Every structure is written in C-alpha cells, then in structure tokens.
C-alpha cells in the first residue's frame, strides 16, 4: 500500500552514529546560513558604498546566484543523493526562466 514502510530498528550504536551525523550536518547548515548573511551584507554595502554601476551589477547578481545555490543545495538538500530528478525539474524551469528574461529584455522595446 502507498503508506506502507519497511521498519528497521537501529541498534544503540547505529542510532548514536546517525544522531552524530545529523548534528554534524546541522552544524554545516548553520555555517551555510552564516555565509548567506555575509553575502547579503556585502550586496547591500556594495550598493550603499556607491561604486560604479558596471561594478555593482555583476557583483550583486553573482552574490545572489551563489546564495541561491547554497539555499538549494544545502537548505533544500539538493546536494544529497536521490535528488537528480528534482535538480532536473529545477534546471529546466531555470532554463526557461533565463530565456524569458533574455527575450523580454531584448525584443520588448524593439521597433
């Protein structure tokens, strides 16, 4: 049935090992969060510092992309196994999104 599951009872050692692994991965998540906050701070301060537009635009777009990758691969667990099909779905969506943006930015105001 669709709600059936195989039940496996871990031994005490296996259980403690799994807990330890999860704690370590959670520590990694907090580090990821720290990096994301840091990237956000750099983005905002680059804009407030008032550098040239041609410097700011690529930098903040790059930082946003890095932050989104961190969010997807760590917070949303895409780096774990069993995530090939989710990644495929998301990249197909992102591909179409990219094409939309290129299209709208180029042909809307032509002619």
């Amino acid at each position, binding site marked *: 049935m669709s709600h059936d*599951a195989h039940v496996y009872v871990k031994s005490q050692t296996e259980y403690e090992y799994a807990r330890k692994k999860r704690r370590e991965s959670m520590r990694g998540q907090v580090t990821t969060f720290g990096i994301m906050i840091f990237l956000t701070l750099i983005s905002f301060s680059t804009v407030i510092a008032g550098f040239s537009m041609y410097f700011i635009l690529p930098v903040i777009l790059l930082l946003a992309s890095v932050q989104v990758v961190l969010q997807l691969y760590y917070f949303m667990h895409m780096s774990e196994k069993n995530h090939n099909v989710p990644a495929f779905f998301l990249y197909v*969506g992102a591909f179409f999104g990219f094409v939309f943006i290129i299209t709208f930015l180029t042909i809307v105001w032509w002619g």
Partner: protein
Amino acid sequence: MDFNTKYTPQSWPEHPEQATMEGKNKFLGFWLFLGGETVLFASLFATYLALKNKGPSGMEFSTETLFELPLVFVMTMLLLTSSLTSVYAMYHMKNHNFKGMQTWLAITVLLGLGFLGLEIYEFYHYVHIGFTYNQSAFSSAFFTLVGTHGLHVVIGLVWIILLLIRNAKRGFSLYNAPKYYTASLYWHFIDVVWVFIFTVVYLMGVVG
C-alpha cells in the same frame, strides 16, 4: 496501514519524508511544482525588467526615489532567518523530536509574519503617496512581481499553521512527515525568490 504505526527514535527512518510510496510521490511532485514556480517567477521578473521605470511622461516615481534599503534589509534578514529555523525544524523531524519541530516551525511562522507585516506597510506607503497598482506600467509590474511573492508568503504561512494545528496532538507518522517536509521546501523556495527580488528589484533599483 502505516498511519497508525508508532515509531521510536530508533525505528524512525533516516528519510521519513520518503519512506513510503506516498512520501516519494509527494517529494517528486513537489519538486516538479517548484520547477513550474521558477518559470512563473521568471516571467514576472522578465516583465518587471522590461517595464521598469516605464510609464506616462513626466512620471515622478522611479526605483531610485521609491525604494528604502533599510526596510528591505530588515525584511531580507527576517526571511533568511526563517529559512534557517525551518532547517532546524526538519533537523528535529529527522531526530524524531516532535516538540522541537513544532517549536521551530512556530518561530518560522512568527518571522514570516514579521516579514509580511513590513511588506504590507511598504505597499500601504506606496499607495498612500500615489504609486498605486494602475498608476503606470512600472507600478503594475512591480506590484505583480512583489505581490505574487507576498501571496506565496501568505500561502506558506497558512499551510504551516494548519500543519501545526492539525498534527499538534497526533505526533509523528510517516503520513504527516512528507507534508511537513514539502511545506519546508516551499518556505525555502520563497526565500530563493526573495534573494532575486531584493537583488534585482531593490538593489538594482537603487543603483538605477
């Protein structure tokens, strides 16, 4: 049926959200939905970028004069932190700590409400100074993009609150674990979209 099986931390599966066929289907189906959401938001971003600062001649509103970075910064921090708290909730779910998960999700909801309150304030302020939805092509594109994101925040909040209330006395099962997991994925996705909104709309708007 597994719905009534009581699990202990030792028998709780490593990936409770994908331990049943139902859970696997929800997981996959939800990622397909997120792929579609990516396309939805990309089309709204494309529209916004094409219509940015475009409107009737002599329009007094532009991204440079309109946006207030301190407010956007606070909103960003609230949403980013709420993303971390929902990671904590999923961590407790894997540890079979029901109370821990409910608590962290409740904190996520509070942070989300804070974000929503600031967004409502921001929109109210814009409308108050005359930047209404039908004021210009720019205002329509702006409110549609940021408003659609705000609508997602509302849906995410209602979804998580309903899960918290409905399962408060039930505890964990492999029936509700995928529901919690997909709700947390949805919440992270809201933050993914916001990263592009604060960069493309607000930061790039202030630059010009």
